[in-house]
């Protein structure tokens, strides 16, 4: 590997705090809301949870929605298989997360914020609570009337879906709501709410710190900025890496693979599986294959049938069971590939299963059921032999 082929490391998200505590927050609170929003819009920042909605638009819509009571929610229910970057962010730079939430609160006019932390990360709570106390002291000094409370999840992947997350916080089963209405008009307690991923709030703070021009130097037209990647699987250097968005997958594999990479699952179980022959033409970013950060690498010793089977079991268990396409679909896809593998069904049956996954994409109520088809069709179509023999 030549030195120039090495992917550029970025040190934005995990970069050190300013010497002055809560400096970015202090400075940004002095600015006009429309100026900050304009910077965010210019920066091209899109949500880092995976869906990639433009952050500035989300905030603008919520700010424009009339209402006394509004909320800022930080989605820390990181549950996508292969993702562990939010844990790292919350461990290393929690102040940036709280600052981002506080900036958002000023812009939309919220007094109360919540962080929904997944139950699996309860061990982070004591440290986070200490950091939160420090934040609240500073907010008082800055006369910024915005408090943050941490609420815990209890082991349900679906609660990472924003409307299911609100249901859970309100004391209900984590079952997604119909959309519209969107959270910008009806979120937590049916009030206008901005809900963003942990990393998105940090990006906001960094844009406020370095300005949109400098921020835009990172990434591509469609995918501005950097991204924290969670790299796992068959790689000698698994871990957390902050890289520019918009890189071609072959360069990623050159650097992180073990020399025998057969496929990369981009975006977790709900993402896409890219086989070796497509590495060159695949861009990691919103113009290509988007990811919330999960990059799972598989080498040629791995059975893609096992990988898919593992994902389907995951979805089957994590489906909230509310809508039929997802509840029954996940189960039938799993049983279907088992039957083909055992020879109880002909190989052609895979085509029917593909049709089923396509229907789920259209008819499932939320992102979970809709995205099962992503991994299903990308694995089945690229590794058909492995499904059959």
């Amino acid at each position, binding site marked *: 590997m030549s030195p120039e082929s090495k992917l550029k490391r970025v040190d934005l998200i995990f970069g050190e705090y300013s010497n002055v505590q809560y400096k970015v927050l202090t400075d940004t609170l002095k600015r006009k809301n429309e100026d900050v929003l304009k910077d965010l819009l210019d920066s091209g920042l899109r949500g880092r949870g995976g869906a990639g909605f433009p952050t500035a638009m989300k905030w603008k819509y919520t700010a424009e929605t009339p209402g006394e009571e509004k909320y800022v929610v930080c989605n820390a229910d990181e549950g996508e298989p292969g993702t562990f970057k939010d844990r790292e962010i919350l461990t290393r730079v929690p102040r940036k997360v709280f600052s981002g939430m506080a900036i958002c609160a000023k812009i939309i006019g919220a007094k109360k914020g919540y962080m929904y932390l997944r139950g699996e*990360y309860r*061990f982070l709570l004591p440290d986070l609570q200490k950091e939160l106390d420090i934040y609240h002291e500073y907010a008082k000094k800055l006369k910024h009337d915005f408090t943050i409370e941490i609420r815990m999840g209890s*082991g349900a992947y679906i609660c990472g879906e924003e409307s299911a997350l609100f249901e859970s*916080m309100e004391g209900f089963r984590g079952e997604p709501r119909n959309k519209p209405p969107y959270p910008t008009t009806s979120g937590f*307690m049916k009030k206008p709410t901005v809900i963003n991923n942990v990393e998105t709030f940090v990006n906001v703070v960094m844009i406020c710190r370095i300005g949109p021009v400098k921020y835009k130097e990172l990434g591509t037209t469609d995918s501005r900025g950097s991204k924290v990647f969670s790299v796992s699987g*068959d790689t000698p250097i698994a871990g957390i890496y902050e890289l520019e968005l918009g890189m071609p997958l072959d360069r990623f594999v050159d650097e992180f693979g073990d020399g025998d990479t057969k496929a990369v699952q981009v975006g977790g179980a709900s993402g896409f599986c890219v086989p070796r022959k497509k590495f060159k033409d695949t861009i990691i970013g919103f113009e290509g294959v988007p990811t919330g950060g999960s990059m799972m690498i598989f080498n040629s010793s791995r059975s893609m049938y096992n990988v898919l089977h593992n994902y389907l079991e995951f979805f089957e268990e994590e489906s909230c069971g509310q809508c039929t396409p997802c509840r029954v679909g996940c189960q039938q896809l799993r049983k279907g590939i088992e039957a083909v593998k055992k020879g109880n069904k002909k190989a052609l049956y895979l085509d029917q299963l593909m049709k089923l996954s396509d229907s789920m994409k259209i008819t499932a109520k939320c992102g979970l059921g809709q995205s099962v088809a992503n991994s299903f069709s990308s694995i089945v179509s690229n590794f058909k032999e492995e499904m059959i023999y």
Partner: protein
Amino acid sequence: MATNNTQLISELVARYGRARTSLMPILQEVVLQNNYVSDSDMTEVAKQLDLSAAQVFGTATFYSFIDTEPKGKYVIRVCKTITCDMHGKKMIIQTLEDMLKISVGETTPDKKFTLLETNCLGWCHKGPAMLINEKPYSSLTPENVHEIIKEYMNQ
């Protein structure tokens, strides 16, 4: 139905308030203290929050970390998602089953350990991983699992 947790639940209700938004924190706290929430606990929570017991059951049973069956003092949850699976999760389960003399889903007769599998814990770069109650353990091998469990056994 009587519950030993009436006082605990009253305290939690006083702390979090009687709104439905308090339901999750209250249930989570009961589980933290008892490792599960019993039928009678749920009925008591319902009474104090002025909800129907069915509403509390409905919420509680949705969440895999809110156990509604008695569990051991130490609940072991081994991650079974793909990267942990690829890096030797089966051997870890085998080690735990041998040491504790129970299968996945079971509790030891002395009610000390419960062994469960769970979905992605977020330690994919250091798999296999497990949680014992809320404490995560990663980069597991049969050897270090042996050490870890021995320590818990002596506690």
